[in-house]
């Protein structure tokens, strides 16, 4: 398959670009909600509009009311979300949770997918338990209790946790904390008993929770897939989420780079446009190279994932690591090349730096994924 968008995908990209630029802009969304100190950190109206565009359920199977699209298509929307820094539950709901629900029973699908497709529901995922992403170690436990389970433990960095109508929780149903097996995924509804959220605003103005499960009672039908069979589903969900985060990161990188290159063409010092200085030209060209490569490896990973390739695992980690580095460079160069104005809240470039920081951390940073690349490469 050629590493560029086919005609349908290119059309979707045009639509998404225009829609997100108009409706998801920094002024209309991120800055607006940030200034209002919005407890959700995103706008529900836009989420509804995204549903009307068909975005929210785009990877949901057609049989379940979605569009039956893949990671390439989700990535197209995510790149525009990234470029506009649009606060949106798309990645957690429409990519991560939707990927997990693909493995769920018809009953679970019927309970949650219509709300996702219509834009009435928002989902979150609860994976991390410490400040670093470490999905190999899961200590949150779900003990058998009657016909259901009792969930105990705590999760961190649950993006949109307090706003979510349902949280996909990775818990241990058997074995020791570091065991590969013995994981089960649960779809935990908003109104579950004994669940409490400590909401924290993050550097990028998004809201995450530290979520405590203090004997949360769950029905047996809250299980996604099989009991003790959650690792594979978790891995599949993580692959989609990481490649999705990479796509969003590409958008962040391109947004920051475009803004910066424009600035180099406008700002004058020493009687010259600063873009005439070779010291800045070379850095801008290097940045361009890195962002182009990040873009390429991301579409590669998306296609491998959609094709169920056995290289998808490796390349999704390569993509997440490479994009983290490239986007990190884009926002750092962005602020530096903007000079003093780049440090002001009034100017948007700083928002890119903040969003990138949170996105780098989400589902594993460059160090985590480079480590996995080494492991998968046999060292």
């Amino acid at each position, binding site marked *: 398959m*050629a*590493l*560029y968008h086919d005609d349908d995908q290119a059309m979707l990209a045009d639509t998404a670009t225009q829609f997100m630029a108009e409706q998801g802009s920094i002024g209309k969304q991120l800055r607006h909600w940030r200034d209002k100190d919005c407890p959700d950190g995103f706008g529900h109206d836009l989420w509804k509009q995204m549903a009307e565009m068909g975005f929210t359920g785009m990877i949901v199977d057609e049989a379940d009311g979605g569009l039956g699209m893949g990671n390439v298509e989700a990535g197209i929307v995510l790149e525009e979300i990234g470029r506009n820094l649009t606060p949106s539950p798309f990645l957690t709901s429409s990519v991560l949770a939707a990927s997990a629900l693909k493995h769920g029973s018809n009953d679970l699908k019927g309970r949650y997918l219509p709300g996702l497709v219509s834009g009435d529901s928002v989902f979150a995922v609860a994976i991390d338990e410490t400040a670093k992403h470490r999905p190999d170690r899961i200590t949150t436990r779900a003990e058998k209790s009657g016909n259901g389970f009792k969930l105990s433990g705590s999760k961190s960095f649950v993006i949109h946790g307090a706003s979510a109508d349902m949280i996909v929780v990775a818990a241990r149903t058997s074995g020791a904390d570091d065991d590969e097996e013995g994981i089960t995924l649960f779809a935990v509804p908003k109104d579950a008993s004994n669940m409490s959220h400590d909401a924290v605003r993050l550097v990028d103005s998004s809201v995450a929770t530290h979520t405590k499960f203090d004997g949360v009672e769950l029905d047996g039908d809250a299980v996604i897939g099989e009991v003790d069979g959650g690792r594979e589903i978790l891995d599949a969900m993580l692959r989609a989420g990481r490649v999705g985060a990479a796509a969003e990161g590409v958008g962040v990188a391109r947004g920051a780079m475009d803004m910066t*290159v424009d600035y*180099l*063409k406008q700002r004058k010092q020493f009687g*010259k*446009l600063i*873009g*005439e200085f*070779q010291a*800045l*030209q*070379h850095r*801008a*060209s*290097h940045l*361009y*190279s890195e962002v*182009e*490569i*990040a873009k*390429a*490896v991301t*579409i*590669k*990973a998306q296609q491998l994932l959609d094709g169920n390739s056995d290289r998808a695992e*490796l*390349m999704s980690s*390569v*993509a997440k*690591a*490479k994009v983290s*580095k490239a986007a990190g460079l884009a926002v750092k160069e962005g602020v530096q090349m903007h000079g003093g104005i780049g440090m002001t809240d009034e100017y948007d470039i700083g928002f890119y730096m903040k969003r990138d920081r949170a996105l780098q951390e989400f589902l594993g940073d*460059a*160090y985590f*994924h*480079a*480590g996995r*690349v*080494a492991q998968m*490469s*046999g*060292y």
Partner: protein
Amino acid sequence: MSDKSDLEKFRHETRAWLEANCPAEMREPVRDEEDVYWGGRNATFKNDAQRQWFEVCLEKGYTVPAWPKDYGGAGLSAPQAKILREEMSRIDARPPLSSFGIWMLGPALLHFGTEPQKKRFLGEIARGEIRWCQGYSEPGSGSDLVSLQTFGEDKGDHWIVNGQKVWTSYADQCDWIFCLVRTDKTNKYQGITFMLFDMASEGVSTKPIKLISGNSPFCETFMEDVKVPKSYGADSSGDIPAYVGEINRGWDVAKYLLGHEREMISGAGGGDRTSAIGAAMKRHAAKTGDEIDPILRAELAMFDVDALAYGAMGEKFLDEIKVGKAHPAQPNMMKYVGTELNKRRHELMMAAGGSRSLEWESEDTGGGKPARGWLRTKANSIEGGTSEVMLNVVAKRILELPGS
């Protein structure tokens, strides 16, 4: 749909053909210069396998698979050529024939050449009969190539060429040269002609340049009153000019070709074999009861991320260039990143090898291959346009920054 199944069929056939025809000895990575078959008047095969592989490919048109059949190719479409490349790389098959004729003069002739010119020169290249070298750089014209001074004085039906080229790859072993020669001293850009002539012509001499690696892949080439006819005769379909494109418009050809050269060199950095350093280190360490230094492991891992990502970039670039989606200046970016990566790879290999990789002549290191190879890569970001020039071009043509 039928396109897709046709391509699948082609893949199956190609796989079967390679299985049946590519000798086992030709399915290993190239280790040294002798493993590469360059063709030419004085060519010798290293072994029977190399000869056999060349001959079956020649018959099939696979020395230049994407060239039209009329010029010795197999006339493969772009997707078919990609499949052949993928299938060859799957079994580590070596190229049956390597040459600057295939990589550089060929694309220029395909684009600018006359019909009889193509028939003659492309055919010779495809059959491995003539080995070409490239006469571009001069002692005073490196990055600023267009300032070149080698001069061809117009004598009616021929030129008398005088001057000196430098960094001519393997000039001492090549048969013909494609050479940039100034033919109008009053016009900097439109005063250069892209000439083709025989290295055996009277007045041509070469002198190998010894590099820091101790090897001499490059020469100085001297031209003293070399007579270059303007035409090499004609066939029924027309003239065979001794230059590509038009007289005084050789810079257009050179610019076009530099794009190809940059693509070619940029191919050196990526690929899946990069991760082999870490795995080999770990195997070696396990034998000696050692462990990989964790900081080195981390650097290897970050390198593998970059190299694998660059591999995807290379694939995307090739896919896009075929359908005209790639920015025309994109090869400059590829060249910059690819060569910098290759240098980094060799730095890491030196570190991974430790003191063993310092050995300059020992048998164990094949005569200092790690060290000499490492030193050779330092030229990657100089030859074919320095990294700094590449960054300038990206700034100017892609980012459209002012005053660059």
